[in-house]
């Protein structure tokens, strides 16, 4: 199974990735305090940042980038299914009193 290990990054790269993650977290926290200035864009930006961090950890730290396609599809499948189902539930529950 050596083919799975050839491309793994070096420790230096891992530290760089961690720094990026740290900076993104710092931006998130900063956004929380500047909500009055950024206004309606705060929440979307926060969500984008969280998704970004999520993808970085899954892709690099969990090596999903370097993993078999089967694993990729499985994880993505679970993700998409969950988003799809729960979006419907949330919208339905939020809208039940309006229609």
């Amino acid at each position: 199974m050596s083919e799975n290990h050839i491309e793994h990054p070096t420790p230096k790269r891992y530290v760089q990735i961690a720094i990026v993650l740290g900076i993104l977290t710092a931006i998130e926290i900063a956004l929380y305090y500047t909500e009055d200035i950024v206004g309606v864009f705060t929440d979307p930006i926060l969500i984008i940042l969280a998704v970004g961090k999520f993808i970085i950890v899954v892709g690099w730290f969990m090596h999903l980038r370097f993993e078999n396609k089967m694993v990729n599809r499985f994880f993505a499948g679970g993700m998409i299914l969950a988003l799809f189902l729960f979006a419907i539930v949330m919208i339905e529950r939020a809208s039940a009193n309006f229609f």
Partner: protein
Amino acid sequence: MSSSHSYPHEPTGVETRKLGMWVFLSTEILFFGTLITTFMIFKGRDFPGIKLTDVYDIPFTSISSFILLMSSLTMVLAHNALEANDQEKTRVWLLATAMLGSVFLAGQIYEFTEFYHKGFELTTNIFSSTFYVLTGFHGLHVFIGVVLLLALWGIGQRQRGLNLEGGMNLEFVALYWHFVDIVWIVLFTVVYLI
């Protein structure tokens, strides 16, 4: 699966245990998805009594979030050290990861007790209930992760040391640990920041 018999396995090239772990993590998405959905539904409603925003302490939670995030770094460094077969370094990074995880847990326990003292209890209102079940379920995952890490560290003390194959191997635990971390990335944003 280190036996030498001729029976074929792993036509996909992914180690079976690792594959099993990925399948497990895929279903974990649904566990946390259900919890987060409930949280979001109730967050948008009116409820009486004290709110999370009245009691929480963003700088404190930010620091503990950062600690959990960095434990992912130490975890991946442990993995990296083991790939280079550096047992000593692997153990050090493992212990560091377990320590960071424990600090996060301690922070969560401190936070919960603070909230309780301020009157934000499990049954205060629907929001507090969802908050405790959601973050508590995540805390339970962190706790299990710390136990696994310490067990791995204990196994690493043996003569033969750790390897990347067999029963409870490092890669297996590492995947779980990173997953616990990414769940917190989402929870921190959804619960505290938004």
